[in-house]
């Protein structure tokens, strides 16, 4: 009995490490844009983190619950409205001071998020298995 838990433990750990390695090395989302846009969007994610936007806002339903989900804010509201909201604040949201580079990177990030899909669950289709199909 004493050796059996160790074998099961090792087998599970190996499976976990393989799964982890697979996720790291296989691109989950195929990047179609140029390198420059990806870097800008990647830096925009850092701006999102620097100002802790995630404490109130969500992307694909993941994040804080005080403010609205911003998955498709780029196509729904447009670049100028986003910039104005960030600069002026609204209700519990304070006004943020971003440099031009930070502002542009944040917009590029939100553009990338928007282009990745729809955060509106009404567009999702439920299959017979109980799974959902994304639009």
């Amino acid at each position, binding site marked *: 009995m004493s050796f059996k838990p160790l074998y099961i433990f090792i087998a599970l750990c190996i499976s976990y490490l393989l799964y982890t390695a697979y996720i790291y090395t296989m691109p989950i*989302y195929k990047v179609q844009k140029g390198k420059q846009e990806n870097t800008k969007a990647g830096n925009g*994610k850092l701006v999102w983190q620097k100002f802790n936007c995630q404490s109130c806002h969500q*992307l694909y339903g993941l994040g804080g619950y005080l403010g609205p989900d911003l998955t498709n804010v780029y196509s729904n509201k447009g670049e100028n409205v986003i910039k104005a909201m960030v600069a002026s604040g609204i209700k519990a949201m304070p006004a943020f001071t971003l440099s031009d580079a930070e502002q542009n990177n944040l917009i590029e990030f939100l553009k*990338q998020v928007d282009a*990745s899909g729809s955060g509106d669950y009404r567009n999702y289709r439920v299959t017979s298995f109980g799974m*959902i199909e994304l639009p």
Partner: protein
Amino acid sequence: MSENTNSGKAFLILAILMLLGGLVFGLLASFVYIDSQFLKDTLGFVALRPMHVSLVVFWIIIGASGSVLTALQDIKPKSLNPKLLYIHILCWLVAIIGVISSYLKHDFGGREYWEFNPVWALPIAFSWILYLIQFFAVAKTIEKWPVYIWMWMTGGVFFLFIFSENYLWLFPYFREHFITDMTIQWKVNGSLVGAWNQLIYGVSFFLMDKISGNKNVGQNKTAFFMYFLGLFNLMFNWGHHVYTLPTANYVRYIGYTVSMTEWILFIRIIINWKKDLTTAQKHFHYFPYRFLLASEIWVFLNLTAALFMSIPAFNIYTHGTHFTVAHSMGTTIGINTMILLAACFVFFSNACHSYNKSTKILNTTFWILQFSLFTFWLSLKLAGIKKGIWQNSSTQSNYHQLMQSLEPYFIVFVIAGVILLITLSIFGVTILYNHYACKIKTSSSIQTSNSTTI
């Protein structure tokens, strides 16, 4: 508990202080839901929320590792290295001061739940390495590990691995596309919870072993089956957090399939309820046991909700809503906190306060805590259901109108939160007060007896 467990208790004292701080910031953050201008120009919700989350997470992980160290000292007295323990606690103090100052200065940068400047992750990781060194030094001397030693080993090792994984975003390769980044982020968040649950459920097994005096609790095959089921879910069920994210399909299917294995736990609770009830009646008089019993009831409630949330067709109604918040609160307070409080009451029982039987105040506080937690949990669940219906409705009002319609639920949630703060503080302060009062009493009586002898 013997005096050998003193250094482990230092971690529990630090953890209790984190709980008290976390509760205060949680309450302040909740006020923003009913008054959007509350502290807006000072800390703001942007700092209050992470402050609350981080301090509560610290309560859980310092409390869990502290409980393990205290238990190890109880199993093998004088086996831990005191110097390493001092460095270990020093690391935590540095991390706590750094994290709090990071939030106060609005110096963010990390991802959700770990929003502080990433530099403060270093003392946390280092403290964890020290924990593992201490753990393995003792564990290697124990023959035929009971299930809780396996769980402590698993929780410790996986926490360090996953915590490091949490910072992969620092490398541009991992953050180049946010879908990849978010998939890894939620792989981490899901598995980290699984890792600390291993530590805490291990503590629960240890306590039951101790309370019942039945060594079979930690050695039987069912316990090992449950451990491996938990480990399997820790590793592979995290996909249920990202059903709505346009990530690879296999992530969704693996997450869904693995999550469904938790029905085994659910069915087991139903089948064993009569046996569990007999055990509960047998030990109910022992005050710390009541927290373990409460945690089991909260496991049932949260597991039931979690099973439905793990079905994607239901998940689109609960994801991104307060239904999920209720789940996080229900598990961290209802399960993790209850087990850790049970551990604190057992580990801090001493010559002055045995906690074997409850006083009237502790008993009343216990029941008020359970009812306020249920009200708190239910108000969030109902707010979540309402938001879930809104986000799937064809005639959707705007977000501001939705939040206004949820205000009655938020008021109940805040009132229940105030009661939770008071009741949990009573327990925290009672443990700390009795511990130090007894220390003073014992040291003064030793001094008196020494002077009499002289």
